[in-house]
């Protein structure tokens, strides 16, 4: 299977801050890739570099086999990009925005398609009038117009930068289901960033997790969930620190309890736990949200035990 996106050692600095740090990854064609990370982790910067909106300091990326900096119009026509916040010209009506966008795809010297019928169906589905002014639409409705415009050229690759950001729970769910419904075409690749773990879990075949500009995870979604384990060790008295070892993602001391998040928990970790004198060991599976938090929270100070005193 060929790769729709190939990223090689992509790096970007903003002043002294390294926003994206030598990220390399491949997204196979036909894959739905969920790109996760906390605010400021570098997700949007990486997506902007992919789309040529931001220039990388070093490294390169190819989309559908072409260098992202110099995408030919014909290749660009095969890529849909929903930028963060769904920027559209607010002075236009929905119909004008459609005509404006359509003009770039119809009667062009390169081969490009535009499905008027799809746009009509999408607007009907979202109950949007072509006469509605973009500036009067809610965030959710603007997201829907953006989605209709992005999908009308029947793209092979969709790049969505936090498409559900700013939408309320119901609109977000509807919007995501629309995406799932509308993008179901074989061979279409979807690369989307999100904060919403539930959204990603429902949709993504594969996930990547960015932490402080570094790609810490790049694997199938199911594998990520199965390989991570929360291990709770109980001690008599204060819990000691767990020694550094392979697979240890994070540890938290809460009084006599030591909570560990470990990738590929096995015999090596069991031996270390025994050597510390743990009186009880509990190994639990993690859902995607817990796994994501464990990966992205970083090292935290031991949690204090709160002692309640009754004032008399």
């Amino acid at each position, binding site marked *: 299977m060929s790769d729709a996106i190939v990223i090689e050692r992509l790096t970007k600095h903003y002043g002294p801050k390294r926003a994206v740090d030598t990220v390399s990854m491949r997204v196979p064609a036909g894959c739905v890739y969920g790109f996760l990370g906390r605010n400021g982790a570098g997700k*949007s*910067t990486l997506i*902007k570099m992919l*789309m*040529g*909106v*931001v*220039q990388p300091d070093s490294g390169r990326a190819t989309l559908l086999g072409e260098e992202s900096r110099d995408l030919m*119009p*014909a290749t*660009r*026509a095969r*890529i849909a*990009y929903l*930028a963060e*916040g769904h*920027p*559209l*010209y*607010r*002075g236009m009506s929905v119909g004008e925005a459609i*005509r*404006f*966008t359509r*003009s*770039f*795809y119809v009667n*062009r010297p*390169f081969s*490009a398609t535009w499905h008027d019928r799809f746009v009509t169906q999408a607007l009907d589905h979202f109950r949007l009038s072509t006469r509605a002014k973009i500036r009067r639409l809610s965030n959710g409705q603007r997201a829907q117009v953006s989605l209709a415009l992005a999908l009308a050229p029947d793209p092979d690759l969709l790049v969505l930068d936090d498409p559900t950001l700013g939408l309320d729970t119901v609109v977000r769910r509807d919007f995501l289901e629309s995406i799932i419904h509308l993008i179901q075409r074989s061979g279409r690749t979807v690369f989307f960033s999100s904060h919403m773990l539930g959204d990603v879990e429902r949709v993504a075949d594969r996930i990547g997790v960015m932490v402080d500009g570094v790609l810490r995870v790049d694997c199938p979604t199911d594998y990520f969930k199965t390989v991570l384990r929360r291990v709770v060790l109980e001690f008599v008295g204060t819990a000691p620190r767990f020694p550094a070892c392979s697979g240890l993602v994070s540890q938290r001391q809460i009084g006599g309890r030591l909570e560990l998040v470990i990738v590929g928990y096995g015999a090596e970790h069991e031996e270390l736990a025994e050597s510390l004198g743990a009186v009880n060991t509990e190994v639990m599976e993690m859902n995607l949200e817990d796994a994501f938090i464990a990966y992205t929270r970083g090292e935290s100070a031991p949690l204090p035990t709160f002692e309640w005193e009754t004032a008399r």
Partner: protein
Amino acid sequence: MNIAIARKELREMAPLIVVALLAQLWLLSGAMGLFPEWIGNFSAGNTIPFLNPFMDGDIVMLMAGVGGCLAIALGLGQTLWELFRGTFPFLLHRPLPRTKIFATKLLVGVGLWLALTVLPLVIYALWAATPGTHASPFAWWMTESAWQLCLEVLLVYLAAFLCGLRPARWYASRFLPGVFAGVLIMILLILPLGRAWSAAILLAACAGYVLAILHVAETRDYS
């Protein structure tokens, strides 16, 4: 040139265009004595058209001034407006070379410069050259300084465009291209260069600004 982008630009800049058009029409009509004196008859005195555009209240200077204000507002509007609304990622993702997108924006600006700065002065010059329209002498060489003013307005437009497009951390450095254009115009006013040399320098500066704009457009980050 992309028609859809050109239409969008004209539509977004419509309020500015209307204001500038009304101002130029008012000045032009007044200069040609079409209004009663109390509304604004600029030829009511004994002014000689195009004799000295740098005299206070001269119609040519006023028309160039309107063109200059439009140039600044247009140059900044075509760039900062897109940046502030965050619409550049949407526009730049259209399947069109980036150079063509920005060249279209510039062509719209140049077209408006021709229509709202050069054309009113051409009409005024043609009126002044028509015998019997006013009681003062006229020769075409008298219009040379007006055309130089037009070129300066074009330079101001391009400088304003570059000011808006160029990434800058604070406002003083943002306006550096404008300061450079202003200094160049002042130097050309002071130095005793011939009209041909001044025009050549202004055209060269305009070409330099266009190249700088296309370079910045291609290399800057739109985040």
